[in-house]
């Protein structure tokens, strides 16, 4: 095995193997230490989620005590009329449907910018590109002011609608559409009598799949992680996404100590959907991730 790797690397100089061994050991040590740094906090969160409140502070923090995970989850779900489940569902709704619509609109716009020639094309693209550099948090306060003009703050739509817009998605979709959808194919579809819109949904969309999955995932994460907009917009607990809900619980820990267990289990459960999404879709998004940076 080692032999095979060395030959593949093709060390041409004599005396290289010794240097190689030292380099390889050093490299693996760096990788090992990094793995600990990245995974130990999550391991701690998992272990803590399995402990009862009494054992949380009194037993070794990085290994199991009595396995209480399912009882903890049941308590969490029951607490406060199941408000935690409500938050999770809200997050899934905000992030899932927001990212789905956002990806669709970004893909259509980026596709049109890549595949059609029309006046104002460059202007639109440059304005959208400027939008990539405008931080979403800078928009939160003015969005609140606008929504309050319509008495629409503290509603589902006040968080949902602004999250749909993804200028970076348009940028990625345009790059990817010009690279992966050949003009000849569009011409052929036209000769067959297919309409432009039909061609997009039946043919081009398939060719753009890796980019679309990437756009979807990163927008999903952006909405799932969004904190400032819901913090400013929402007062009604029933509308909170899970991040805002856990934030609020965490700031009440000093007054209501038993809530701490819920914060920890809630935090642990809230990261599982994202990890599953990333793992199951990784063969798509890893290809797409490079696309944005190649240009």
């Amino acid at each position, binding site marked *: 095995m080692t032999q095979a790797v060395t030959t593949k690397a093709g060390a041409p100089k004599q005396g290289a193997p010794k240097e190689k061994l030292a380099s390889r050991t050093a*490299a693996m040590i760096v990788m090992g230490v990094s793995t600990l740094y990245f995974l130990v906090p999550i391991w701690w969160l998992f272990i803590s989620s399995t402990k009862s409140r009494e054992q949380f502070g009194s037993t070794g923090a990085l290994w199991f005590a009595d396995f209480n995970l399912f009882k903890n989850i049941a308590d969490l779900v029951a607490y406060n009329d199941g408000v935690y489940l409500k938050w999770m569902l809200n997050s899934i709704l905000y992030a899932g449907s927001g990212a789905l619509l956002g990806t669709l*609109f970004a893909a259509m*716009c980026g596709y049109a910018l890549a595949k059609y020639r029309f006046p104002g094309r460059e202007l639109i693209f440059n304005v959208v590109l400027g939008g990539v*550099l405008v931080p979403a948090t800078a*928009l939160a306060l003015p969005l609140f002011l*606008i929504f309050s003009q319509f008495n629409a703050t503290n509603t589902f739509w006040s968080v949902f609608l602004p999250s749909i817009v993804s200028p970076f998605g348009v940028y990625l979709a345009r790059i990817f559409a010009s690279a992966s959808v050949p003009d000849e194919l569009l011409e052929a579809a036209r000769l067959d009598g297919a309409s432009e819109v039909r061609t997009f949904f039946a043919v081009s969309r398939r060719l753009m799949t890796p980019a679309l999955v990437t756009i979807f995932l990163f927008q999903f994460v952006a909405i799932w992680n969004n904190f400032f907009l819901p913090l400013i917009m929402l007062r009604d607990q029933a509308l909170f996404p899970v991040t805002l809900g856990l*934030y609020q619980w*965490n700031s009440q820990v000093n007054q209501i100590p038993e809530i701490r267990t819920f914060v920890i289990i809630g935090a642990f459960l809230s990261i599982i959907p994202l990890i599953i999404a990333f793992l199951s879709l990784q063969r798509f998004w890893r290809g797409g991730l490079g696309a944005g940076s190649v240009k």
Partner: protein
Amino acid sequence: MTAESVAVARAKPRRSTVKHKGSIAFFIVPFAALFAAFYLLPIGWAIYQSLLVVERDGTFGKPVEVFGGLTQYLLVFQNQEFWASVGRVLLFGAVQVPVMLGAALVLALLLDSPLVKGKKFFRLAFFVPYAVPGVIAAIMWGYLYSPNLSPFSALTSEFDFLSPTTVLWSIANVVTWVYVGYNMLIIYSALLALPQEIFEAARLDGANQWQIAWSIKIPLVAPAITLTAIFSIIGTLQLLAEPQVFRSFTSSVSSTFTPNLAVYATSAVPNVSLAAAMSVVLALATFALSFAFLKFTQRKADS
């Protein structure tokens, strides 16, 4: 590239008429409408709001908003807490961004080198923190830093991670923890896209892995690094969730710790016009800084 130039050549003769107008509108209008409503309009609104001041007739008069020119901007520039927060995030960025991107680059190069086995595992392990939202990561690390609940209490009871002098760097660690893997993956994808022949040639010339990494790989993935740097700079200036969460663990984080916290605190007063002016200044500063960085790296690449 070739396909595009062919298309341009083909489109030239009938340039005067735009074909497929209806379809183009169908593709562009949904995004454009939302972009106008939730990007352009808020920017315009923030600028408008920032030009207003509140006036009253006497002490008990009804407050009315009137045009006040650049009054709010003058107040922003005189607001020491706001500038202290800007200085704080700039210091934060000057240290945290290079450290984070340096680590991401080193890990990406190691993953790309033949020195490391089990690449698939490491790639995933490093990326997992990116799936943890900033708020959740901050809550988690808040416990890890705490003197009595931390699994590392031997360390945290001796060294205070949440004191006024250290808390900024404790937050920097949280941000680094979340984003190293993400940035590593962007750089790593760029590395994978490089043609392998260059390295063959360098190896035949007797270059070792370090030399190949330093003189060939790093310059070639510079655009990817620039991209990650710009997003990191934007992210740093916008720092909000992590310090806001840390406010429930320690009193060392003031209500105006970062510019965005200052905006939030000011709007809660409520002094929305001043907060809007702060938002505008912050957005302009972010824009200017990332733009300047882009130009700077481009000039460096050209010379």
